[in-house]
């Protein structure tokens, strides 16, 4: 009687259930339109685009600045915000606003590279666990389960302390190693629910190679999950990298929002009357994080219409 097996993901996180729909949206145009009509997605996308612009062409936003924004003693030190220095200057006489603009690049790069890396790792582990089955699945799911509950930020502190503080590559690798498990868990559940579908069976009967089936048949059905996974781990990476650098576990001579926060805290800028210097980099981190979170939530809404905000007039009619 029960010929349709209950998808395993239904008991998992919300939003996944929407992604399970086997019927796909009508091409790319559908997705673009859905994004355009979703206010959260638009705000997130605009914020993200703004940060990309800042990272790619920082000099547009500070046309008066020439040379290295980190030059020591370029201006008098510890100036309060003024027309010439919108956010004041640091203890070493660097312009905070210029540093903030130029710091975008490293922070954004960390987020995107670490996000891509952990998404890739979660796809490899999650999909192969679901597809291989048997002992391989048991071992891989156990590994995923362990990394899912290991306290990752403390683990990162341990790793970064031993690996020698300050290496950007180390920070990115550590972010990837600690950030893949959640996505892998969801992809595995999705993969398991697909395993006995007809279109995969027919591909097997056609005699396609395993690699072909995984890449051409299985992966496209997971696009929205993979995208959500990327946004989630990018958000995680932005916040965690800034936290690590704030604690002094980043390269303190590099230029990113996290290191700016570290130096501001180091000089106790907040309590000695330089709140803008102390808070502006954190605000930038928060904004980038909000951009990722808004996009992520909007994709949930797009793939699961039940979650969308109820329109006013419809809501009134339902109550009357």
């Amino acid at each position, binding site marked *: 009687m029960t010929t349709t097996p209950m998808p395993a993901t239904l008991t998992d996180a919300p939003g996944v259930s929407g992604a399970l729909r086997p019927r796909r949206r009508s091409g790319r145009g559908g997705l673009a339109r859905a994004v355009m009509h979703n206010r959260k997605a638009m705000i997130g996308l605009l914020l993200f685009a703004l940060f990309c612009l800042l990272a790619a062409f920082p000099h547009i936003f500070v046309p008066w600045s020439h040379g290295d924004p980190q030059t020591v003693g370029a201006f008098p030190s510890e100036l309060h915000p003024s027309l010439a220095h919108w956010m004041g200057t640091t203890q070493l006489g660097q312009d905070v606003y210029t540093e903030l603009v130029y710091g975008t690049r490293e922070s954004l790069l960390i987020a995107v590279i670490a996000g891509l890396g952990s998404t890739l790792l979660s796809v490899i582990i999650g999909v192969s666990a679901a597809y291989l089955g048997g002992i391989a699945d048991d071992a891989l799911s156990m590994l995923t389960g362990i990394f899912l509950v290991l306290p990752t930020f403390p683990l990162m502190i341990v790793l970064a302390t031993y690996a020698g503080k300050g290496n950007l590559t180390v920070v990115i690798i550590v972010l990837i190693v600690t950030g893949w498990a959640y996505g892998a868990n969801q992809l595995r559940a999705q993969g398991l629910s697909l395993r006995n579908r007809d279109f995969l069976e027919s591909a097997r009967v056609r005699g396609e190679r395993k690699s072909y089936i995984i890449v051409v048949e299985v992966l496209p059905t997971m696009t929205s999950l993979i995208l959500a996974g990327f946004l989630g781990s990018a958000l995680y990476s932005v916040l965690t990298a800034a936290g690590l650098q704030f604690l002094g576990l980043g390269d303190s001579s590099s230029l990113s929002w996290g290191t700016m926060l570290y130096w501001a805290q180091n000089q106790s800028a907040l309590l000695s009357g330089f709140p803008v210097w102390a808070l502006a980099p954190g605000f930038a981190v928060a904004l980038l994080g909000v951009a990722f979170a808004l996009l992520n939530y909007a994709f949930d809404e797009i793939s699961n219409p039940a979650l969308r*905000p109820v329109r006013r007039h419809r809501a009134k009619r339902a109550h009357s």
Partner: protein
Amino acid sequence: MRYLLRRLGFFVLTLWAAMTLNFFIPRMMPGNPVSVLKAQLNHSGRVASTQQLNALLASFGFDPHASLAGQYVTYLKDMVTFHWGVSIGGSSLGASVAGMIRQALPWTLGLVGVATVMAFVFGTLIGIVAGWRRGGFLDGVVPPVFVVTSALPYFWVGLVAILLFANGAHALLPNDGNYDIGLHTEWSWKFISSVLRHAILPAGTILITAIGGWILTMRNTMITTLAEDYVRMARAKGISNRRIMMGYAARNALLPNLSGFAMSLGYVIGGTILVEYVFNYPGLGHMFFLATAGTDYPLLQALFMLVTVAVLICVLLCDFAVLLLDPRARAKG
């Protein structure tokens, strides 16, 4: 019963994995504890003989005379029997790690424990109501507001809180420490009120940043659950709204939220390290910062294991709760 045994097995396995990671990370990494230790001892003006150095190293599992396997076995035994060695950090050189942790632990349990549980309970309740009153005021406000708050960095919220409430000579609330200097630990109103005043800002920071995720997941699962046939059935039977909301919808919607709680706990605990650092709150999180600032390997080792144990205990408690709420899990097990 089988379910419980399986979860207990997972508990032991994860703990073992964490301790093994803890053991192998320092041995695979370029930074060498021996040279760090030497530098640190010289820095603090103490000249240590090779013998003393070896004794110190052996005290946290780096016995240079033992084989790797031998070191590993001793390390595991020491970790589970609370023989955590002595600190090699700058200011606390020679202090017993177990003693340091015993002093910090109650503060973290009190602050982080209470704040996290409060965030989960309130978050779940708000999520239930928002999902239930679909299209109501709360449901309109919840998603945009809490998507934003859940993406804020913990430490930044803490810094803003300090700027708003604990800045300047006539600050509303204190911005660092756990109680006013000069007070003694005692059961007096003066002491307790001081502790509470010091806890408000850090606890509020944790609450604001942690609550969003739980509200959103609870609201979303609530909406999905409310579309189920058994909810319609309950309505048709004329069961009171409150019972449908709590007993039919929320009870089922809570299950995925509980496993979500277990999974995100590691992240929340990471955030609280930063909160304790920002507020100079002398708990385990702040100690994490001290350990990494002073490259204090023994302390770091013990702290990481302890945090893992804490998370795992919470995961186990969530499993118990699932068992209580979900007859299916009981029947299967």
